C-alpha cells in the first residue's frame, strides 16, 4: 500500500504571471482513496489538469511508479492509467450508453470501423464490472445525473485505470446516490485502483478517504492520514483562519404589536416537488433553508421568484396576498432572488458593472422611454460605495471583478429594486475566504438596516448556522424540522441532515 503511484514534486504553474500552483507536492499511493481538499479557486482543478496532462507545469517534476515522466500529455496520462471524471462527465448525450462506454476503447485501438456487436460486449462488461443496472440502449442525455455519473465511472474503469480522479463528484447527487457512489468507490479501490476525490465538502471527505491533502491559494498547507483531521482543522487549513463564531441573533422588536411577517407562505405546494409548506419570516430575520439536493429547496426559491407558476397555496408579502406567475410579479411584490450559479445565471459578464446593477431597475428609470441617466449614475455610484465594490469606475466589465465583488454586484442589483424579501441560493459559492466573511456581514447588515426578510439556501451548514437566526430543514418536499441557531451547533444540524435518506 505504501508505494507511490504518482508523485508531484514541487509543481509550479503560472498563468500570465499569476501563480496558480506554488511548488505543490502531492503523492498518491497505489490503491488508496486520497482526498484533495480546498476552497474554490485554491488550485484544485489546476492540480487535476497537471496530473491528467492537460497543463504542462512550469516547474517541478512528475513521477509515475517512481520513474520521472518528462512530458505528460492527455494521451500519455491515459496510457499511464490516469482517468479523470469531470464534473460535467464529458459524455455524449445524443448517443447510447453502450456507445459512450465503448467509444474510448475504439479510439484507443485506433479503429476506423464501428463494430456494434463489440461495442455492446464492451459496454456490457463495463456495466457488469461496476455491478450496476444500466440500460445499454438508453440515450445518455435522458439519464438522471446519477446515471450519467455511473456511465462516466464505468467508462473510466474500462481503460485499465490505476488512478481515477473525481472532480466534485457529489455536487448534484442526493444523499442516497452519494452512498451508492461511495460503495462503488470502495469497490473500485478493492481492485487496487487509486482514487483522488476532489471536493470541498468536509463531511464526505472525512467519510470516504484514507489520506488527504489540503491546498490553499496554490500551496499545500496540510497532508496526512484522514484520521488526523476533523472538520474544524480542515476548515482552518482550507480557509487559513479560524472562523469566528458569532451567530446571528434576532429578537422581535419590543412593543405591543409585532409587525406582520415580511414573507408568509401557507400550504405552498408544487405537485411533484413539494407540498404543505408554511413559514413566516419577520423583518430582519435570516432564515436558513437546509436540505439535501433534491429536497425541493431550490424549487421553493424558484416558486417564490415566480418561475414555477403552477404552485398552489398562498404567499403574502407584508400581509398582502401576492400572485407569482412571472419573475416580474415577484419583483413587483418585492421578492428578489440571487441564483445559485453567479456566472451563468446571475451576471452579464461582458457588460459593465453599472449595467449589471441596473438590469432590473431600467424600467423604473425610464418612465417615458428614455433612461434618466443622472438618476442611474447616482444609484450606481452610491451602490458601489455602500457595497464597497473595489473598482475605480462602474464602466468596468463585471468579468474583471473578483468573485466576492461580483456577488456584491448581484446583491446591489436587488437592493436597487427596494426588495423586501431576499432569497439567496448559495450566496458565497466560489467566493474567497476574506470576501466570504464580508458578504456575510453585509447580508446581516442589510437584513437589520432595511428590515429585509432573508431566506438563505446553502450546502454549507456552517454558513447557515453562523448567519441565520433559525434554520428550516427540508426533506422530500416537506419542512421536517426547525431549529434556532442560538441553541444548536453545526454538528447537530449536520447529524439531522444525515438521517435523511
Amino acid at each position, binding site marked *: 500500500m505504501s508505494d507511490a503511484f504518482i508523485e508531484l514534486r514541487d509543481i509550479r504553474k503560472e498563468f500570465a504571471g499569476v501563480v496558480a500552483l506554488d511548488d505543490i507536492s502531492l503523492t498518491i499511493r497505489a490503491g488508496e482513496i486520497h482526498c484533495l481538499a480546498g476552497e474554490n479557486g485554491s488550485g484544485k482543478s489546476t492540480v487535476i489538469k497537471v496530473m491528467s496532462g492537460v497543463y504542462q507545469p512550469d516547474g517541478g517534476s512528475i513521477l509515475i511508479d517512481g520513474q520521472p515522466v518528462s512530458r505528460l500529455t492527455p494521451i500519455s496520462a491515459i496510457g499511464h492509467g490516469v482517468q479523470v471524471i*469531470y464534473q460535467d462527465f464529458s459524455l455524449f448525450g445524443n*448517443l447510447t450508453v453502450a456507445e459512450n462506454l465503448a467509444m*474510448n476503447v*475504439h479510439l484507443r485501438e485506433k479503429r*476506423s*470501423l464501428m463494430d456494434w456487436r463489440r461495442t455492446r460486449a464492451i459496454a456490457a462488461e463495463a456495466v457488469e464490472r461496476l455491478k450496476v443496472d444500466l440500460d445499454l440502449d438508453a440515450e445518455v442525455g435522458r439519464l438522471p445525473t446519477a446515471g450519467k455519473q455511473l456511465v462516466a465511472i464505468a467508462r473510466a474503469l474500462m481503460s485499465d485505470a490505476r488512478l481515477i480522479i473525481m472532480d466534485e463528484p457529489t455536487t448534484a447527487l442526493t444523499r442516497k446516490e452519494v452512498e451508492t457512489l461511495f460503495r462503488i468507490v470502495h469497490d473500485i479501490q478493492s481492485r487496487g485502483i487509486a482514487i483522488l476525490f476532489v471536493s470541498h465538502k468536509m463531511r464526505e471527505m472525512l467519510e470516504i478517504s484514507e489520506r488527504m491533502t489540503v491546498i490553499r491559494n496554490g500551496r499545500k498547507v496540510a497532508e496526512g492520514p484522514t484520521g488526523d483531521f476533523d472538520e474544524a482543522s480542515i476548515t482552518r487549513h482550507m480557509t487559513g483562519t479560524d472562523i469566528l463564531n458569532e451567530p446571528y441573533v434576532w429578537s422581535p422588536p419590543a412593543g405591543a404589536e409585532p409587525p406582520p411577517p415580511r414573507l408568509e407562505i401557507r400550504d405552498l405546494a408544487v405537485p411533484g416537488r413539494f407540498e404543505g409548506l408554511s413559514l413566516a419570516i419577520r423583518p430582519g430575520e435570516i432564515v436558513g433553508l437546509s436540505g439535501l439536493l433534491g429536497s425541493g429547496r431550490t424549487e421553493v426559491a424558484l416558486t417564490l421568484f415566480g418561475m414555477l407558476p403552477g404552485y398552489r397555496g398562498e404567499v403574502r408579502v407584508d400581509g398582502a396576498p401576492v400572485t407569482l406567475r412571472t419573475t416580474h410579479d415577484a419583483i413587483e411584490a418585492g421578492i428578489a432572488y440571487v441564483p445559485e450559479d453567479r456566472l451563468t445565471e446571475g451576471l452579464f459578464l461582458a457588460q459593465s458593472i453599472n449595467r449589471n446593477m441596473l438590469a432590473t431597475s431600467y424600467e423604473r428609470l425610464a418612465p417615458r422611454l428614455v433612461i434618466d441617466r443622472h438618476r442611474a449614475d447616482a444609484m450606481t455610484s452610491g451602490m458601489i460605495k455602500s457595497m464597497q465594490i473595489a473598482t475605480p469606475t462602474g464602466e468596468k466589465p463585471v468579468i474583471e471583478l473578483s468573485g466576492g465583488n461580483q456577488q456584491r454586484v448581484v446583491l446591489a442589483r436587488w437592493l436597487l429594486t427596494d426588495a423586501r424579501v431576499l432569497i439567496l441560493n448559495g450566496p458565497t459559492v466560489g467566493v474567497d475566504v476574506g470576501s466570504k466573511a464580508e458578504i456575510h456581514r453585509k447580508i446581516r447588515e442589510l437584513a437589520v438596516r432595511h428590515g429585509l426578510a432573508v431566506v438563505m439556501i446553502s450546502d454549507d451548514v456552517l454558513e447557515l448556522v453562523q448567519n441565520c437566526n433559525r434554520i428550516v430543514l427540508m426533506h422530500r418536499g416537506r419542512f421536517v424540522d426547525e431549529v434556532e441557531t442560538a441553541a444548536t451547533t453545526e454538528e447537530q444540524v449536520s447529524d439531522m441532515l444525515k438521517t435523511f435518506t
Partner: protein
Amino acid sequence: MTWLRRSEVVIAGILVLAMIVIGLVNPAFWQLDNLFSLLRSNVIIGIMALGVLLVLISGGIDVSFPAFAVAAMYLTVKGMLYLGYDGVALPFLTAAVMGLLFGSLNAFFVYKFRMIPLIVTLGTGAMVRGFLLGVVGTSMININKMPPALIDFARTDVLSFTKADGTTYGLTAMVLIYLGLALAMHLVLRYTMIGRSVYALGGDAEAARRAGFDLRKTIFFVYCTAGALAGFAGLLHSGMIWLANPRDFVGLELDVIAAVVLGGASIFGGRGTVLGTMLGVFMLVMVKNSLIIMKVDTTWQRVVVGIIIIIATAVTAWRDRRRQA
C-alpha cells in the same frame, strides 16, 4: 413500441397521408410516369441533402454548397469543351474533387477561426459564385454544346414503358446513384469511427476533444464531403437537364436545408439519419411538384416551401421542449 416514436416513422406516416390527400385531389398523382418523374426530381436535391445532413449532424450549417455545385459543374463542362474530352467517370471525379476543395475552405475557416458556420459559408458561397460569374463567365452552355457523353449517361433508364399514345417514359438510372450514395452515407455514419465522430462532435464538441477525437479531421471530413457531394450533384444536374447554367441553383440551399430538417435532423447537431433525410427530401419534392398537379399556380411554390419549413421547425422545437420537460 419504441420504434413508433422514431422520427422516421412519424415522417413516413405524414408522407403517406400527404400522398393519399394529393391522390384524392388528383388521381393522376398515382400514375407511374408521375411517380417516376417525382423520383427523378429527388436525385439532385437528395444527393446535396446527404452532404447537408452531415453538416447539420456535426452541429454546423452550410449555405455555400449550391455555389460549389454550380462552380464545379460549370468549370468541369467548360474544361471538357476546352479539352474536347468526352467521357463520364473522369468529369464526375473532377467535379467532386473541385467541390471537395471548395469544402475544405469552409472546413479551414470553421476549424481554424471557430467562426459560426453560417457566416463562413455565406462568405465562401458568395466568393465562389462571384468568382465563377465574374471571371469564368456568365453564358449558358446549352444542348448543342453540352458534352454528349454526359447527356447520354444521364439519360440511362432502369425501367422504361411505352404509353398508349406511343410516347415512352422511364425511371432514370440516376435514382440508383442517389440510392447508392445514400447507402454509402448511411454505412459511413453508422459503421465507421469517422461517422461516429461526426455525431460526437455535434453532441458535445468539448467531450469529443477530451475523448481524443481528432476534430480537425472530422470537420474537414464533414465539409469536404458536403462539397464533394455538391460538386458531383451539380455535374449530374447539368447532364440531366442538358444545360450548364452558371446562374443555376440560386436559393436551392433553402430547399435542401428544409428537406433535411423536415427529415428529423437537429439544427443543434448530434441528431439525424439518412433515411429520415431521404423521406424529408421526398416530402419536399413531392409537395412542390404536386402543386402543379393540384392546379396551384407555380408562383406559390416558395410560399409553400417557406410554410413547410416553419411548420416542420415549429413541430421539432415543440417536440424538443417536451423532451426536456
